[in-house]
């Protein structure tokens, strides 16, 4: 009875929005202030073009776009959400949006998610936008993580794409024997080590355990956590990672792979563009899913999602909602995620994944070979403070694996303080 009322209401709402959708949107007037953190040239152009198309469809709207440097945005958002809120703001999914949701600074947009156009086509990312059973924004792009590797080096050494931990280690041994490092990485800004931890822990203990750890329900001194680090240590002791990674940013670690001093890079898909720019062709560069370690756990992947939100203090929420609908619509998703623009994965199931081998592989992997679940990334899944301390610990572990006991007890103390 109860649920059928709900369905009826939803259907009514849907028909209302469908019926009045066109005329209502034509009447949108007033100002629409959009704050973006897409400050790199390509994403910036993509966003501005998309906003221009939106403006064309709604000539009555006075749209004002502000692009803020991506790093500066992370601290400025706290000020502008409270003091001088725009109507639409970019941010990140999952725990990263929790502080603003809990402070009541993001608008509940569950109504948008009830509309069939979104409910049917964006189901895969719904979980990442949900806190306390409500949705607080919409995604506009996401991308896969995985191992990008030098196919030509693999061929030269007679290696094949690994699928199990033993194959991975066997490959690495041969790569090290050839005088190279298996993996390049730059941990100066810490988060790259978080990617390794995500994969090693999800493969060793599974997605659910990983999320329990991120939410502070498991001790860092747990035997299962130690097993993750033991697996990690095998690669470290082998000489799998480049030396001095603690001094490099992720970009500074790219040349090692380009010059052939390292054979692979565990990274997000955004690494493909600079690697191609540096001269690696698609014959040299390829991708494989992070290998399975514990056969008893299902594969789970990292796929960080970037999002649009409506601040609670926004002035023109109708126009903002229309903009969110527009941004996630299938045609716009196809355009903004194609390789000429963001070069990432569209969030709308009806849109086209670009004809690019990395995006195609990533899309296939996330839609069919990630049964365990999809994580956002360590520093978005864990609370900011825990993420910071733990990633510092991961970096220390990668440089001084013998300090593991001290690191874990430090993380355990931090856990008890942070989650309370």
């Amino acid at each position, binding site marked *: 009875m109860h649920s059928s009322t709900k369905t009826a209401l939803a259907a009514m709402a849907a028909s209302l929005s469908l019926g009045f959708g066109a005329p209502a949107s034509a009447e949108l007037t007033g100002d629409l202030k959009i704050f973006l953190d897409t400050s790199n040239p390509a994403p910036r152009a993509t966003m501005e073009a998309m906003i221009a198309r939106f403006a064309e469809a709604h000539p009555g709207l006075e749209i004002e776009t502000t692009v803020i440097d991506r790093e500066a945005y*992370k*601290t400025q958002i706290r000020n502008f959400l409270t003091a001088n809120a725009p109507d639409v703001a970019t941010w990140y999914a999952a725990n990263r949006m929790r502080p603003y949701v809990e402070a009541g600074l993001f608008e509940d947009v569950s109504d948008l998610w009830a509309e069939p156009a979104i409910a049917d086509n964006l189901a895969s990312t719904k979980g990442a936008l949900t806190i306390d059973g409500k949705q607080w924004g919409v995604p506009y792009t996401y991308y896969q993580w995985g191992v990008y590797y030098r196919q030509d080096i693999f061929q030269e050494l007679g290696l094949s794409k690994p699928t199990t931990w033993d194959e991975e280690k066997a490959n690495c041994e041969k790569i090290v024997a050839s005088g190279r490092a298996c993996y390049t990485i730059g941990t100066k800004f810490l988060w790259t080590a978080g990617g390794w931890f995500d994969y090693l822990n999800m493969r060793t203990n599974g997605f659910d355990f990983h999320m329990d750890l991120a939410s502070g329900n498991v001790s860092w001194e747990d035997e299962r956590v130690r097993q993750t680090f033991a697996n990690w240590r095998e690669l470290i002791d082998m000489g799998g990672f480049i030396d001095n990674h603690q001094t490099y940013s992720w970009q500074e670690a790219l040349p090692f792979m380009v010059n052939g001093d390292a054979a692979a890079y565990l990274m997000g898909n955004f690494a493909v563009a600079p690697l191609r720019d540096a001269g690696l062709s698609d014959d040299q560069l390829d991708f494989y899913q992070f290998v399975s370690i514990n056969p008893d756990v299902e594969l789970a992947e990292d796929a960080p999602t970037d999002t649009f939100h409506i601040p609670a203090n926004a002035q023109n929420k109708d126009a903002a909602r229309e903009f969110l609908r527009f941004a996630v619509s299938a045609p716009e998703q196809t355009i903004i995620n194609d390789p000429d623009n963001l070069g990432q994965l569209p969030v709308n199931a009806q849109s086209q994944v670009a004809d690019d081998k990395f995006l195609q592989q990533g899309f296939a992997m996330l839609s069919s070979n990630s049964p365990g679940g999809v994580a956002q990334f360590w520093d978005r899944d864990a609370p900011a403070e825990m993420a910071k301390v733990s990633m*510092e610990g991961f970096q*220390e572990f990668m440089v001084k694996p013998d300090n593991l006991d001290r690191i874990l007890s430090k993380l355990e103390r931090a856990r008890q303080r942070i989650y309370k």
Partner: protein
Amino acid sequence: MSAAPDLADRDSWFHRNQQTIAPWLFLAPGILFFAVYVIIPIFQSFNLSLYEWDGLGAAEYVGVRNYEDLYWEWVDRDAFYTSLKNNLIWLLMYLLAIPAGLFIALFLNQTVRGIRLYKSLFFFPFVISQVVVGLVFTWFYDPTFGLLNVLLGAVGVPPINVLGNENLVTFGIIFAGLWPQTAYCMILYLTGLNAVDPEQIEAGRLDGARGVRMLWHIILPQLRPATFIAFVVTIIGALRSFDLISIMTQGGPFGSSRVLAFYMFEVALSEYGFRMGYGAAIAVVLFMIMMGFITYFLWSMYREERGY
């Protein structure tokens, strides 16, 4: 007899008290801004350090728990301990800028062709931004491509990763910081040397003072004011050290190059931070340390003005 009431009528309260009021009127803008931007925030920091606040929600009063946490971080040899230890290293090592600046100033204090050019070249590092200094030294120290390891390699020393080694990193950053700070001290001493009394040098020479004895007994006493200022700016500079750390290491590797100022920023304002109360507690500790030095400086200035 009749003039007195006339005068009293003409002179308003303002006119009678002009002498007392005028200085305060002139000081008022300065006092106002100093109060709003310096004095009041100090008390606000004290207050905030007793709360737990993420900058968004409601602040929760926690008493001295933030300080207790700092104490436990000290006991556990954790981040706070590292920061305090590094601050001490900064304070001591940074003082090297004073003798180094003096040495260069003495060296440059001669009249040869083009000395002005040399002086400005030596002063150059102080003119460029700390950010640039940080970047230049980061590249200099780079373990694979850096000039330092090329130089070391030429004399057969194996490469070292200065900024990636938790024991060397602070010294590496201080060394970068000494470059502009030495230039600053040099300029202070160069101006001081202009004011050295030639007659005293003459007299010293007649008495047979030369070299180090001349420097120690005749020149240095006359450079006292310059030394004092160099000391003040160097101590304050060491305690404020932030930009170089932020540019060169972000406090890493694994937090071993943090100082209090950077730790405070990290905890309160960085991407993963927003523990405002805890950051304020660190700020209070840093303030206390600075206050110690500032009080000493003010006291010794006061003593000097009174002529001992």
